[in-house]
């Protein structure tokens, strides 16, 4: 099985450690992983800024770049949701379906497809799991508080194996962090208020670490935490926690 690792543009440029953690986890699982160098962006940022035509061009490009890989795996639920739920609108059902069927969020792939044993190294911290909106309400990875279709939660399943980890209970476990791509700069005041409310909820639960399968949410929360002096909080992508100290 040949895996194409998709490292979303924001991870590539701003948080390369997450890409390497994802790579390490896949390689440890014994699959062959390639990183097609021609990849750039899935097009979500353009679609949500009103660029239907531009996003379509990038979707078509994504399909070409990852042609020939048995599965496409990304450490970003939101980008995966773009491929799985929006490419059909851009490329047509026939062209999008084969891509959608083999594109996976990292934890979903490790847990649901490769069925790796959850890592068991020590991570003795109180961890707040931030449910990214697109993981939850587009990929349906987890059980949304408002109901509707629900699936297994691979992030929680994989983290639960770590020694000493404590997943804290949040008052609003699946409220949006307010990133929302272009929303974060078009509506900065509301966006920041939403993010600060998440940080407050996580603090009330005495979380030491915040993690998620969505790096864009985490970059937004980290930028808020830094500005507001919340240096006590460590913000880590779930791949970094799962890969452990070896990477």
């Amino acid at each position, binding site marked *: 099985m040949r895996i194409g690792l998709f490292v979303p543009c924001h991870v590539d440029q*701003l948080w390369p450690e997450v890409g390497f953690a994802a790579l390490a986890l896949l390689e440890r699982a014994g699959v062959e992983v390639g990183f097609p160098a021609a990849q750039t962006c899935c097009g979500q940022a353009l679609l949500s800024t009103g660029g239907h035509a531009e996003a379509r061009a990038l979707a078509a490009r994504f399909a070409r770049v990852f042609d020939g890989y048995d599965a496409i795996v990304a450490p970003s639920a939101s980008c995966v949701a773009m491929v799985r739920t929006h490419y059909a609108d851009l490329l047509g059902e026939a062209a999008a379906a084969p891509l959608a069927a083999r594109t996976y969020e990292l934890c979903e792939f490790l847990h649901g497809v490769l069925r790796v044993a959850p890592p068991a190294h020590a991570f003795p911290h109180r961890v707040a799991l931030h449910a990214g909106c697109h993981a939850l309400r587009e990929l349906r990875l987890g059980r949304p508080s408002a109901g*509707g279709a629900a699936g297994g939660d691979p992030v929680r399943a994989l983290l639960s194996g770590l020694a000493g980890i404590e997943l804290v209970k949040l008052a609003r476990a699946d409220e949006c962090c307010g990133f*929302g791509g272009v929303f974060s700069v078009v509506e*900065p005041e509301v966006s920041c208020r939403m993010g600060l409310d998440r940080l407050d909820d996580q603090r009330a639960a005495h979380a030491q670490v915040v993690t998620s399968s969505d790096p864009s949410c985490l970059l937004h929360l980290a930028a*808020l935490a830094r500005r507001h002096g919340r240096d006590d909080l460590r913000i880590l992508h779930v791949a970094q926690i799962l890969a452990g100290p070896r990477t």
Partner: protein
Amino acid sequence: MTHAERAAGFLRDAERARWHDGSLWSLREKRDRAAAAVPDWEALREAAARIKRHVLAELPAYLTRFEERAQARGAVVHWARDAAEHNEIVEGLLREAGARRVVKSKSMLTEECGLNPHLEARGIEIVDTDLGERIVQLRHERPSHIVMPAIHLRRQEIGALFHAELGSPEGESDPTALTLAARRDLRARFLGAQAGITGVNFAIAETGGIVVCTNEGNADLGTVLPPLHIACMGIEKLIPRAADLPVFLRLLARSATGQAQTAYTAHFHGPRAGGALHIVLVDNGRSRLRARGEFADALTCIRCGACMNTCPVFRRSGGHSYEAVIPGPIGSVLEPARAPAAHASLPYACSLCGSCRDVCPLRIDLPRQLLAWRSELAAHESGGALRRAGLRAARFAFERPRVYAALGALARWAGRVLPERWLGGRWNPWTRGRALPPTPPKSFRALYARRQK
């Protein structure tokens, strides 16, 4: 002004914003519990969506049938192409009946048509009888929420308003006392009214009947006392059969407030003995929206307000920040259809979290529609040209990995060497409340390429 600017204004009163968010969130939680208690909730949503989509597809036939059956029961049916025609019809009916004092129960349609100012300008007194609507009427503002029109106000503000307008004791802010003060005032107006206007929640094509749901019984009282009842409805309110009604009644109140049913569900099948019933069917852009495949689903909305209660943006920006008759997610889809230029910022008042789609009893795919509006409205938006240019530039770079990598390296280099106050100036909306993002010396692709060597 854009939604973002008005939202920023709302958030400046941090304490009010927090309280507003909390009140609506508790409604969301009540809705969750109510929905979870119905074992076939998802099947109900599915059925409701199917019925309403079917009605939309066959709308002309159902409208004709409804008109026939309603007339057979003695109601008079009127057709209004737009808001102006609607207002003229209602005004004409009131004049014919010599009615100068009118009571009205909750109706978003008459809000949409601007009926109150139209009648007031012509010397007809119109009193909103829903408590929340009465409060906003006395304050000369529009409802901030379609189910709880005065949810943006705290009881102390309502106390001060009632002291000034209704003569309740100064400093009184006890909800029960304030409700009684409103009740005393409204009771006299009910008794003196010469006509009652209501909205319509559901109109049944098969029977020619209309159904009005309230929690205060004000539609009932406003139609049994005066001899003339005028019911105003959008043409999308139809359902095919009486047997379809329970599907919607089970969904409506649970979605709205978490109640199993509204306290009152009034059925009107023809005029009451000795009275007259007029039904005004209004298009006002609905046919146009119906013809637009991708947005037509928005016409299946039953106005429960669940999308507003769940929306993290609405809860933190208040209904007035939308400057629209219908605020929130559904309003952000409907209002640009009515006036694209005026409402071009609304589809951006959304983080695309998808929560509204999960709570919508009609399963309207609101996030997808908001996304579609963004592409469509680029022409109408302030800064739309700039945005289009940015999109083209982004596409150019993302289609050329080397350009993309070079621009990324340049930006990260700038982030490391330039002073933070330059990059994080007022011009940069990212840093208004956030630190700059990290600027690692090497990208993943650069490090990966080195590793492969």
